[in-house]
């Protein structure tokens, strides 16, 4: 089914690009789905990105989750026990970061271009709220944050492949892990020629809880008191039922 979906998608893109070629557009891309629903059985999801380019060039795809502040803690040893002794707040940190490219990034563009467009985890701009951290201390906090997000599977550990079919059609896969944060994601597709960006396109991707999970989550946050009372009532009934079953046995 997936294979058929891909073929259909590529065909539609090819048609799209034919009609678009009369205009100045040199890049078209779209996602196999624009909504990733987190349901009861959710264990991560793959979203297919496909597109077509005009002429030669390299494609880079960057997927970013909504920006959020992040608090980091650093441990040190007190009386033999490891304790969080310092903390640092980053004002804006993407909650998810994935990247894919058709060739190794350093062959596609110079570091300045990669840095300007935040291509690659090492080029992410992470603002430290407190300016008092000296550059090398700030770099350590930054590295710590990247390690933690990578360990949680939220930041790409490596650059994925963008595969070309022929020299116009391309596709890649965006993998979202089970612990993926919710919100509106931005999928940025860049076309680069000779180390310069010649075209770019941004597509939104919505990740949200749906169904029973969303009901429970929203209820817990919007009516916390009622939620607490219901949780207690459920436990009381469950305990009583258990007693009845236990007595019969």
């Amino acid at each position: 089914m997936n294979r058929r979906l891909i073929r259909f998608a590529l065909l539609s893109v090819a048609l799209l690009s034919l009609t678009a070629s009369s205009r100045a557009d040199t890049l078209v891309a779209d996602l196999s789905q624009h909504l990733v629903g987190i349901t009861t059985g959710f264990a991560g999801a793959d979203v297919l990105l496909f597109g077509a380019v005009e002429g030669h060039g390299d494609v880079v795809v960057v997927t970013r989750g909504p920006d959020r502040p992040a608090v980091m803690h650093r441990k040190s040893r007190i009386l033999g026990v490891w304790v969080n002794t310092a903390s640092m707040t980053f004002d804006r940190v993407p909650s998810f970061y994935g990247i894919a490219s058709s060739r190794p990034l350093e062959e596609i563009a110079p570091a300045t271009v990669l840095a300007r467009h935040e291509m690659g985890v090492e080029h992410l701009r992470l603002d430290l709220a407190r300016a008092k951290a000296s550059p090398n201390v700030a770099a350590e906090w930054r590295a710590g944050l990247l390690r933690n997000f990578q360990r949680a599977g939220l930041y790409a550990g490596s650059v994925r492949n963008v595969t070309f079919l022929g020299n116009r059609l391309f596709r890649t896969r965006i993998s979202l892990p089970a612990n993926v944060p919710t919100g509106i994601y931005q999928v940025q597709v860049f076309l680069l020629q000779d180390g310069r960006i010649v075209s770019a396109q941004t597509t939104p991707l919505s990740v949200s809880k749906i169904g029973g999970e969303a009901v429970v989550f929203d209820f817990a946050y919007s009516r916390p008191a009622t939620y607490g009372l219901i949780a207690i009532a459920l436990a009381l009934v469950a305990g009583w039922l258990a007693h009845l079953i236990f007595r019969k046995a």
Partner: protein
Amino acid sequence: MQIYLPIAEMSVNVFLLLGMGGGVGFLSGLFGVGGGFLMTPLLIFIGVPPAVAVGTEANQIVASSVSGVLAHWRRGNVDFKMGFVLLLGGFAGSTLGVMLFSFLRGVGQIDLVISLSYVIFLGIIGALMFLEGVRAMRRRKSAAAQRRKLHQHTWIHGLPLKMRFRRSKLYISALMPLSIGFLVGVLSAIMGVGGGFIMVPAMIYLLGMPTSVVIGTSLFQIIFVTANVTFLQAYANQTVDVVLALLLLTGAVIGAQFGARAGARLQGEELRVLLALMVLAVCAKLFYDLLVTPGDLYSIGITR
């Protein structure tokens, strides 16, 4: 089969949760303890955020205490008056405990405090239980047990606000059960336990209650204290995951039946030594984790 837990915001295998509930339920049926002190660390080990583990476990303990207390009630083994005094202290203690919990969570120290509380209390209780059990086993072998006095008179009996507890055959100051209830309430909120493993020895050794009413009365007050913790954790921190709680308690109910049956075949003293060893093992694991150099000194905190 994976299930996505809405509040913990993670995907876990259903059978792992049912198995954990069953395993801890079996042990709690075997030893006659609540099992919160095993389940909360286990949940943290599998990656549930500590705050969610504590809030959810309080919710599950409500259920297991209800089913336990009903059986004791039918046999008349609940001292309701003592229970009410204990839970008055428990309410105040657990309310303060949840406030403390929210504060510590905000400053990034909650994981440390949870671990340290476990290490200290499991260490003390485990060591005492182990010594007591070994001594009892030796006594049983050597000679017939000597008669003990009903209770000894100490400074505790000089405190004001004396109350009569008929069911427990006690005439003591209400301040004692109030403060025990308060302390256990604080621990209940921070550690995600019912506190039976502290409450029961305190009732026997500090208050001098007869053993027959201790378990029933302890379970009775645990219902209210854990219900209070559940409500406040849900209200203040949104850390009660009902889906997780229901899965755990389903396993726990079934496990407890088998545990109780297996327990009937073992000697009381041997059980106590076994339980003590288990408590000490959990304590040692948590202590080791505090001492060993962490893989990464940096960690992500909570943002609101």
